[in-house]
């Protein structure tokens, strides 16, 4: 055909098996089906509403962190300090409210401002000095958690008395908690941002090839900076929800959650190097991990098996994802 020929019919949307299986969520969907069937066979209680409710409660907090982390990771950076932020921020919320006799909600606002500040510092140091975010956030992670342990002497910070804000964050209704609604809203919002807005396009481009994105006129530094702050803010928010649920903050719980959130993103199809990923995939990754957590307990296994299980799942799902990408001829870098 000659140049200038009219396209016979522009295919705007075509659903085909080949296209479906190249989506980043494929590996995790397969994993989820396998794990759910397995645990259901081991213990039918697995699909009881009470258990699904408890899976959702765990998934809500882990999911909010993981969404922020995935968003940052797609733009090509990472944040190891989310676990420390997750415990530091609610401590500020409670301590500032108690020390100055403020409503908890005001304490919450102060604490969230602190979360944004941490993201800003992570971003500034990473971008200004062109350091790997892995190293920068490794040090802020240690700084923050060390500082928190020093301030609290490692004691759990308790909250006394009911308050409305905690009800809004994590009230229980039957088998479910309202925190799962927060998580779904956040997932929907960031999924929408990533797939359907100009900003989302810039996030993919920044992570996919920063040099080219910049030459196409995108302020990649601003994109990354924004995402650092979003990531930190969501981690702090998740920490506040957790505190609203248990009415206390344990300064030593953040580390595991950081790994779980990062693993969820990877399982959900996010590339550590950036440029590829999905918020929905990350949510499925979170569901997978929280299901394993409760499934093992129901199956009568020692909860210590959890880590080993997660390790195995990461490998299997990542290999599935690689095969899926490879099916299209080339493996992305």
């Amino acid at each position: 055909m000659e140049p200038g020929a009219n396209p016979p019919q522009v295919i705007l949307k075509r659903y085909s098996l080949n296209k479906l299986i190249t989506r980043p969520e494929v590996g995790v969907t397969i994993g989820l089906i396998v794990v759910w069937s397995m645990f259901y066979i081991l213990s039918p209680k697995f699909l009881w509403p009470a258990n699904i409710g408890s899976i959702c409660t765990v998934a809500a907090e882990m999911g909010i962190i993981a969404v922020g982390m995935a968003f940052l990771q797609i733009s090509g950076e990472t944040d190891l300090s989310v676990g420390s932020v997750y415990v530091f921020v609610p401590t500020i919320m409670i301590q500032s409210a108690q020390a100055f006799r403020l409503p908890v909600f005001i304490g919450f606002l102060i604490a969230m401002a602190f979360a944004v500040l941490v993201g800003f510092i992570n971003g500034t140091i990473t971008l200004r000095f062109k350091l790997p975010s892995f190293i920068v956030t490794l040090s802020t992670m240690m700084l923050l958690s060390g500082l928190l342990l020093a301030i609290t002497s490692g004691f759990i910070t308790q909250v006394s008395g009911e308050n409305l804000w905690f009800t809004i964050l994590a009230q229980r209704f039957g088998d479910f908690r309202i925190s799962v609604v927060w998580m779904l809203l956040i997932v929907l919002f960031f999924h929408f941002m990533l797939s359907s807005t100009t900003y989302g396009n810039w996030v993919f481009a920044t992570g996919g090839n920063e040099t080219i994105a910049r030459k196409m006129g995108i302020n990649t530094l601003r994109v990354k900076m924004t995402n650092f702050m979003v990531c930190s803010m969501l981690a702090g928010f998740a920490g506040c929800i957790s505190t609203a649920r248990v009415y206390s903050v344990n300064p030593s719980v953040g580390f595991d959650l950081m790994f779980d959130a990062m693993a969820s993103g990877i399982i959900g199809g996010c590339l550590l190097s950036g440029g590829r990923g999905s918020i929905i995939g990350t949510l499925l990754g979170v569901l997978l991990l929280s299901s394993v957590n409760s499934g093992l307990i129901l199956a009568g296994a020692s909860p210590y098996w959890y880590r080993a299980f997660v390790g195995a799942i990461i490998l299997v799902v990542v290999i599935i994802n690689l095969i899926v990408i490879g099916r299209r001829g080339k493996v992305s870098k």
Partner: protein
Amino acid sequence: MTQENVLEVRNLSKSFGAVQALSNVSFTVGKSEIVGLVGDNGAGKSTIINLLMGVYQPDEGEIYFEGKRVKFDSPRDSRATGIEPVYQNTAVVDMMNLWRNFYLGREVTKSFGPFSVLDKKEMKKKSIEMMWEIGVHVREADESVQYMSGGERQSLCIGRCMEFSGKLLLLDEPTAALSLKETDKVLKFAESVREKGLSEIIVDHNIIHIYPIVDKFVIMGRGRKVAELRKTDVSAEDVIGTLMKL
């Protein structure tokens, strides 16, 4: 200066720290003209391209685009003026699909309540139509560009330039890392772009490759313009000779 010049640069200088990357370089690019910017490594070719792209700003000197003085503070300014890059082999983000690449940095949006949402349908349709117009018969705008051939990716850049009524294409080593066949395709593209009335600056090491299509050579050496030669006046061997003497 004459009206036929799309681009004129006058006395451009740029230094990075103690390194004088470019000193006092002037040349013009006419309408529908292909200028070959040649020189050894470190001659200042990339610096010129980066100044024209707005990646760096010149220390001294002026850039005129279609007779008007322009200043590029960022790549965004440069693209808005009508200068479109085709980078070494490609200016696309591999992991993104056709329409996302095509409109990168100039996304088409529509309003959706309080939000401004990507108009995906429009972008998919337009990008495919433009690819067809250039003669690349892609069918799916959702296809990741990493599965496209080198030639198809270059077409994407050229199509992008035409869609946004760009006037000057910067081809930075367009044939680097390409096979002979692909190189031939790229050069044919460059010619077809000229036929569409666009101007081009091609940076390349291989004089023999680009000699057939270039109208004028600007020869660079150590940050200075050594010569500006019309192709009608010189043979490819002359150009290479001049380069080797530097």
